[in-house]
């Protein structure tokens, strides 16, 4: 019997290792797996590479992980926010490495990882600082930049409902990066509001098929 349910967020992230690359879903607070991030803070792994749209807010969640000095490198599209002072301080002090990625390229590079592609040609960023030093190619009169996949060891994602096989559905705009991250990581861990019996999620509406998900944790 396949049962991907894990008893607690702590158990779900217990094997995260030093130096791991971790994708974290969400856009602002919407779709952010806050309980899994809290469990990761308690878990203690360090020298991490994080991939998330932003660079943390206030002093909780991702910002707390940054403040503890546990993150070596972060990939994001929009680190500059009014309350991202923890990141700002580390960045200006040279204590964290930033790879700034256009938001669509971030999504695309994770999709490439999940789909087993070697690289993708994208028009986004052509001729800008963010494409400096990268291979380019003109195809049918349009210019493209070669971008490589973002592979990861773990993805921490959030969904509304899941079942023991790992099928997931999301809620409104909380879907955002979560389904893409599920496919891009070796081990996708989903925090869900409820685990339902198999078959209760209409197969026509499954957004993330269970094959992409390794662990499901119900948090209420």
């Amino acid at each position: 019997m396949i049962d991907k349910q894990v008893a607690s967020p702590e158990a779900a992230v217990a094997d995260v290792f030093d130096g791991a690359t971790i994708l974290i879903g969400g856009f602002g607070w919407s779709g952010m797996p806050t309980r899994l991030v809290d469990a990761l803070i308690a878990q203690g792994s360090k020298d991490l590479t994080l991939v998330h749209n932003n660079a943390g807010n206030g002093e909780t969640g991702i910002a707390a992980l940054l403040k503890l000095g546990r993150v070596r490198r972060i990939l994001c599209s929009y680190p500059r926010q009014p309350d991202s002072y923890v990141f700002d301080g580390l960045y200006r002090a040279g204590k964290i490495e930033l790879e700034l990625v256009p938001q669509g390229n971030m999504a695309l590079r994770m999709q490439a990882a999940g789909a087993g592609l070697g690289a993708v040609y994208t028009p986004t960023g052509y001729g800008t600082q963010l494409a400096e030093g990268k291979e380019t190619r003109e195809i049918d009169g349009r210019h493209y930049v070669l971008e490589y996949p973002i592979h990861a060891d773990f993805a921490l994602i959030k969904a509304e409902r899941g079942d023991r096989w790992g099928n997931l559905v999301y809620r409104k705009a909380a879907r955002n990066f979560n389904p893409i991250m599920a496919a891009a990581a070796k081990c996708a861990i989903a925090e869900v509001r409820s685990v339902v019996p198999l078959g209760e999620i209409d197969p026509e509406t499954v957004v993330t098929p269970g094959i992409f998900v390794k662990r499901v944790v119900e948090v209420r």
Partner: protein
Amino acid sequence: MRKFSHDEIAARVARDIPEGSYVNIGIGLPTRVPNFLPPDREILLQSENGILGMGPAPAPGEEDSDLINASKTHVTLLTGGAFFHHGDSFAMMRGGHLDYCVMGAFQVSESGDLANWHTGAPDAIPAVGGAMDLAVGARHVYVMMEHTTKTGESKIVKKCTYPLTGLACVDRIYTDLAVIDVTRHGLEVVEMAEGLTLEELQRQTAAPLTLSGGRNG
């Protein structure tokens, strides 16, 4: 001379967005544009975080933390709207499915180069979000900005000095002084603030302007 107010610029942009359009509205000044979209036109707003058919702010007490826009403020969904993931959202932009985007800018060049993500200052925190994807992807890229900086320098330039967001991507510029098309023949003035002459507008613009020959509008 009477400059256009921010609301007047927004209303002017809204007037140019036709029935049936799919539109992405950027952060900053452009956030005013939806307030002026004529209610008799069906225009669908896209938000990069996975919303098509975005509606206005909810009534107090009806906010939903899973229904926010790119600025992370609460919005609503129109009947018939849809949710999707980031891959689909940026495919809509990059794939040329989005008809219009309206963005703010630091600078626009005479050839339509756009600079709006980074001042390049050494201590500045860079942030790009979806701007580069919109710049290359939206079928029409409209810029809404002040004509000059706070110190009076033209934001319309021959060549951008700030880091670029996209090359030759801007189609039309709406400022507090004028509406200007970026064309193969250079910058063409479509409309000016009341009482402004082309000579005076040119004095405040660091790239050559000509009056539109009526081809645009």
